[in-house]
């Protein structure tokens, strides 16, 4: 018995790992008397894999049998791999026992499509219902919405899940058609929009009637695979922006494609996943969501790709030197946030602290500003007087010379000849 379950867990966890979402935040589901678990608003990462990704959820597939043949997926029909399937009881028991030992924050349940969408969704729903109703489990549950499942099933699942997600997979329709001819963006958009409408409706009702149950309290998310098809960064981020706006998504995940197939439409096995590019996309995503940048400022027709060697905020600043230097002691909070080397927390502290006197360099450093980077873009009480105005290329070379990129294995700067 224990050997078989170990085998199943290995197969089905391995197949689920390419789904990068592991967030456990955003739900404030409370525990009830005699129940187990609750939601933690900011989420908890219980451990990290050796590739540095957080592990907060037990991320498994119910089964890796699948009727589809998407080129980018390990579980595709034509792939010759071991197949397995959990029973409902096995998933429930694993979740409960891992949760009781504080290994995990909750369950992330996905599945290959067997038979048809409704049949699969029904099985997922069974697991969630058993957890919530029989085991009185109130921890986090992230459930995959199966595209094409009936609206009643999706709605019922939403009553028990904390987050639901559907993966967009490829940033553009043409990319998706290339690798997964059976799928389309429309299939994703429909259920996303349906769940979004339900979330709004439940929220409205809750304002009037307190006892209205929670419906997907941690919202929806989606994921795009990066580097499998030749999209530009601009296309990716504009798609992401559209989905954030239209469906109120909590997160869009960008997953650098890890080669798993000999298909000639895809990068060959053994090529490095595009980790830096993925990182730059996430940085752009953060700038859009928290720093008040519009996607067009960061990526437009003139700049369809993000710089690999510097982050998008710095590269925006270098393209727009007319806004700088910013005087830390008078500039608006919004403008201070846009300075490379100053994050949200430092910006807040600066705005609060400057009411009590002009800020100096040493104070900025203590507050947590990356001063060596920020100094090219700011003025403060004791900034040294500077006669010369530097060009953006010069500033870039100053910053690159001082900083060491975590991605560069060898120093690429040219040696001095004489």
């Amino acid at each position, binding site marked *: 018995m224990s050997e078989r379950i170990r085998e199943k867990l290995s197969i089905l*966890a391995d197949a689920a790992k390419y789904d990068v979402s592991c967030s456990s935040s955003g739900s404030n589901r*409370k525990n*009830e008397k005699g129940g187990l678990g609750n939601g933690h608003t900011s989420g908890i990462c219980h451990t990290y894999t050796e590739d*540095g990704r957080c*592990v907060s959820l037990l991320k498994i597939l119910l089964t890796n049998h699948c009727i589809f043949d998407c080129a980018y997926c390990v579980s595709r029909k034509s792939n010759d791999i071991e197949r397995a399937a959990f029973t409902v009881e096995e998933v429930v028991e694993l979740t409960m026992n891992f949760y009781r*030992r504080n290994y995990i924050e909750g369950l992330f349940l996905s599945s290959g499509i067997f038979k048809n969408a409704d049949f699969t969704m029904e099985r997922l729903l069974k697991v969630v219902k058993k957890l919530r109703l029989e085991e*009185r489990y109130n921890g986090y549950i992230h459930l995959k919405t199966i595209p094409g499942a009936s609206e009643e099933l999706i709605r019922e699942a939403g009553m028990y899940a904390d987050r639901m997600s559907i993966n967009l997979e490829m940033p553009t329709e043409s990319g998706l058609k290339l690798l997964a001819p059976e799928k389309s963006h429309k299939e994703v958009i429909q259920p996303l929009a349906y769940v979004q409408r339900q979330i709004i409706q439940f929220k409205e009702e809750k304002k009037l009637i307190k006892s209205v149950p929670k419906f997907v309290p941690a919202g929806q998310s989606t994921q795009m695979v990066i580097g499998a098809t030749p999209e530009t960064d601009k296309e990716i981020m504009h798609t992401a922006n559209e989905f954030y706006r239209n469906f109120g998504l909590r997160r869009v995940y960008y997953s650098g494609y890890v*080669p798993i197939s000999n298909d000639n439409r895809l990068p060959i096995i053994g090529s490095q996943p595009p980790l830096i590019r993925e990182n730059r996309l996430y940085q752009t995503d953060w700038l859009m969501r928290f720093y008040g940048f519009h996607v067009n400022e960061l990526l437009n027709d003139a700049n369809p790709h993000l710089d690999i060697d510097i982050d998008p905020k710095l590269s925006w600043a270098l393209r727009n030197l007319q806004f700088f230097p910013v005087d830390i002691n008078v500039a608006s909070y919004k403008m201070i946030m846009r300075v490379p080397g100053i994050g949200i927390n430092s910006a807040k*502290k*600066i705005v609060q602290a400057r009411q009590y006197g002009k800020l100096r360099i040493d104070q900025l450093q203590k507050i947590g500003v990356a001063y060596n980077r920020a100094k090219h873009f700011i003025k403060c009480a004791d900034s040294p007087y500077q006669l010369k105005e530097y060009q953006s290329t010069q500033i870039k070379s100053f910053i690159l010379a001082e900083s060491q990129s975590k991605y560069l294995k060898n120093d690429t700067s040219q040696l001095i000849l004489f």
Partner: protein
Amino acid sequence: MRITYLFDGSMEGLLCAVFESFERKAKQVKVELLQHHQPDAFTESMQIHNDSKKAGRVWSALQKKLSPAWIRKFYCCFLSERPDAYTSLYEFCHYLFTHPAGAEDNYGNEHVLLIAQMARKVEREKHRMEAFIRFQESQDGLFYCGIDPDFNVLPLIMKHFKDRYASQRWLIYDINRNYGLFYDEVSVEEVHLDFETQKRLQKIPINAQASKEQLYAVLWKDYFKSTNIVARKNTKLHTQHVPKRYWKYLTEKQIDSFG
């Protein structure tokens, strides 16, 4: 004249030190732990006697001046048990009571900044404990974990574990500070174990573990292995998130005979 106030390490003692300094209009005061004190020839020292009334007055004055979020920072900073934190808390009280309202937002002041930063460290340690504690189930159904956090975070993590694990008995024991929290499905109690029991309890011995404990530990290790993507290996990032000093807690990081 310089003077050193010696207090016993309790919040009450620290607040009393603040009270005494105002009452005596003392200048140039240093606050030190009684047990760490090294007398020197040029400074006088005075031992602070705890008085809940005096401490209460200072505390309520703080509550009037500070938002709940700041009170939490103050408390977290106190739990760090660092000498410079005590000094800053003392100086912070003086700064706060002698300046107009809102002075706590002045991050240009070194004590304000130190408290904010120290509180953050403590909160981080608290969060790490919430994440890295791994319970082991004993034969009689008790879920146990022994910890030795950098800061005294047990009072901070109590609520989290009480709310979450409401339907199981658990015990979290701070091995260094020699006290723990025990929950019996009704309420949480502070417990002290005698030295012998404590030694035995750093980990539950295999013969006292629940029958399925080993199985779930192995399953968890399997899961940890198979969820890793080898092509993306990034050891630096890994150790940044899970510093090595916490590995001893983590079931998935223990080498075992099952493989």
